């Protein structure tokens, strides 16, 4: 069974049909890409999977569990984490705090246990902090752990958003244009980074990207959207040659 399975998913905003009959199967461990011109409906797909929007039709399953109707925090708890197209960090919180917030949902201590400082709660807090450092070291942000996130350079912010998502302990990671605004050098680093975390944490990745070379080089399978319609699906090499895809992209430019 696929880890993520979308069946006949449709989304309508008032009169606008943003997505129609999307079918998608992402196998465990896969690295899938979602591409398409501006306004194609890619971010909408992420919002549907992560529970910020409710599809007007269709079903979304994670290893067989229906996600439609669950609130975002429950979906995250089931193992789906995401980043945002326009980076959304917790402004004044430090880098370390971001990762700790990401781990919060896995904590077992109750609030009053934390307030009373019971041994179990303290042990858990120490354990979370240890893992946070581990993660920050792994993604190369340990140096800036005590900086407020808002003051980091752009590339670090992108990285932090991914680190924060990783901290929630996901099985599936949704990345919305992770390379946007990065220079070629940073983009190459990002590619290695993504491959690396995928292996290290046994992740399944679903990625939206405008940077076609990056997608072609990275993804095993692509879905191409245009005006909410699926115009092509398949391995990068095949999709690249698809006339509908070429038309959609060239038509826009």
């Amino acid at each position, binding site marked *: 069974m696929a880890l993520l399975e979308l069946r006949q998913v449709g989304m309508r905003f008032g009169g606008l049909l943003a997505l129609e009959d999307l079918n998608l199967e992402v196998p465990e461990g896969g690295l899938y890409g979602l591409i398409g011109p501006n306004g194609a409906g890619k971010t909408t797909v992420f919002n549907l999977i*992560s529970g*910020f929007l409710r599809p007007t039709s269709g079903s979304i399953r994670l290893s067989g569990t229906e996600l439609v109707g669950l*609130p*975002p*925090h429950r979906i*995250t*708890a089931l193992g789906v*984490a*995401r980043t*945002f197209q326009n980076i*959304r*960090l*917790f*402004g*004044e*919180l*430090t880098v*370390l*705090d971001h990762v*700790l*917030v*990401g*781990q*919060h*949902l896995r*904590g077992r*201590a109750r*609030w009053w246990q*934390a*307030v009373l*400082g019971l041994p179990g*709660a303290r042990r*858990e*807090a120490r354990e*979370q902090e240890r893992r946070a*450092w581990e993660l920050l070291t792994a993604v190369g942000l*340990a140096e800036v*752990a*005590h900086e*407020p996130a808002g003051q980091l350079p752009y590339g670090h912010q992108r990285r932090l958003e991914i680190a*924060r*998502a990783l*901290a*929630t302990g996901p099985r599936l990671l949704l990345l919305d244009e992770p390379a946007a605004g990065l220079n070629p050098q940073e983009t190459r680093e990002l590619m290695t980074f993504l491959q690396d975390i995928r292996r290290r944490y046994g992740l399944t990745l679903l990625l939206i990207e405008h940077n076609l070379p990056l997608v072609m080089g990275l993804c095993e399978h692509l879905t191409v959207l245009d005006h909410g319609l699926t115009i092509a699906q398949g391995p990068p090499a095949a999709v690249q040659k698809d006339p509908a895809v070429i038309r959609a992209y060239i038509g826009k430019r």
Partner: protein
Amino acid sequence: MRGWRPGVRASSLAALMTRSTWLTLAAMALLALCLAAAERFGNEYQVRLLHNVAVFITLAVSYHLINGVCGQLHLGPNAFITLGAYTAALLTLTPAEKAATFLLTPLIWPLREVSLPLAPALLAGGLVAAGFGVLTGFPVFRVRGDYLAIVTLGFGEVVRVAANNLQGLTNGPLGLKGLHPLDSLWWSWGVAGLTVLVVHRLKNSSFGRAMQAIREDETAARAMGVDAFRHLMLAYVLSAFFFGVGGGLLAHLITTISPGLFSFFLTFQLLIIIVVGGLGSTTGAVLSAVFFTLAGEWLRVVEEPRQVFGLMVPGIPGLRLVIFSLLLLLVILFFRRGLLGRREFSWAALGAWLSGGRRSKSRG
């Protein structure tokens, strides 16, 4: 606070922890000593002022939890304070005193007969306010921002109207008189200390971080698995509890309460306190509460008529509030971060500051 780089070795960290723990304990002992001295040697006015300071610390720090830590502009503290005040007052008065107060409509049955010591009465005040918090939390947290502000603002109005009309429970517009005054500074300062401790620890826990994440970006927080409703509800109900307890203290400090006493003005005062202290800083809320209680006392003079060199100078009612609202406006327009921004007190930071400004990177 967590201001140390990973390079600091565990042993020195432990040493520092114990040192700051010792310093904290010493500071608390010193405070206790001062309070004991004030209670013995201070005059009535000074003791009353100290009570006031403690009550305002309690109220401001609870307000800071929902408003500063969670970033929700809750405008109804006065409603919760009123609930706590009435509950505690009705429980501590003796049956005879109640019978003498409720002349028009007798007090309803179980309350008519009971009389409790202050501690359980305060607790009950807190619980009633918290219960009201649980009930109102559901509609309140369906909305955010401006709407949340207006709904909670409405609570003060609703509670006032109810207190005026529920004669058999509140004695209506006449209010309650002759409450037993607080007999020791430990009541107010004990509650203040407890509130600060709870809020401080909560803020620095995983839950408090999640609350701050909601403040910074609720959508992102939810995407990280934070159940925004539960966390906001927790902060809201907990603050309601402390508002209730603080209200009970306030009632027994003033000894006479009536429905209009805890008006939106009280909420406004608390708002100024936490904004000037730095929205989001517990330390700021405490310091600012102390400052404003004393400054408010001092400014009271401008509103009261008094003798100056034998001349009768009329007081100017409202001037104090003009000053306060101008101050709030100026702070929010030009010094939005207030006194402390979001920083907190720590011995390490204090030490660094004292030893010549070589500020360590502890923000926190």
